[in-house]
């Protein structure tokens, strides 16, 4: 699966990374938070999106899917 990150998450981790498929959104979030403690709070507050729809923590991410994490917005 591909993971797309925005804002301070992209700065701290990378704009896009790959991970093995079969994990849930929650598992990906926990994994990234454990590896990148400096942005763990932002990760936990981020909304998860697949195909332009918000998804819950239990959603399993397929191999061909892109999971996006949207950190709290700055606004305009």
């Amino acid at each position: 699966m591909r993971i797309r990150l925005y804002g301070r998450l992209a700065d701290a981790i990378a704009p896009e990374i790959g991970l093995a498929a079969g994990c849930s959104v929650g598992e990906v979030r926990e994994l990234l938070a454990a590896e990148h403690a400096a942005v763990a709070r932002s990760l936990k507050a981020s909304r998860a999106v697949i195909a332009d729809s918000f998804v819950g923590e239990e959603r399993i991410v397929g191999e061909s899917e892109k999971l996006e994490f949207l950190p709290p917005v700055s606004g305009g």
Partner: protein
Amino acid sequence: MSVTALLEPQALDPQLELAELTEAARGDGAIVTFVGLARPESSSGEAVDALVLEHHPTLTRQSIEDIAVGCAERFDVSHVRVVHRCGTVPAGEPIVFAGAASIHRRAAFDAVDYLMDRLKTEAVLWKREVGDDGTKWIEPTEGDLVDRERWG
């Protein structure tokens, strides 16, 4: 009734946006507009060269449109126009144009106030200031959140 919500990657021309709104509002009695500029100084007083607004390829424009439609549904306005920059905005340049036209002025004033309060807290944008000291991510202030709460 028309609602226009645009995400603009190039320089924003407020005069042009006002002209578009004026043309649409021939039958109205009032137009109110707001133009936000990229500030040359951060809240802590450091010089800022530019603001960089990162956006999502689809959800950012959708969020701006949702706010504009919410405005049109809530107030007695005939036209709503929002144009928001994305990308790099040099200090001093326009970052957002928000305008509304109505038969009477009060609805247009309220509509633009509402637009800006929601845009400042809900538009899907990630904003950072760029200056001599590097870059700094910006989040809505407590005041922005209080302003947003006025509208329920």
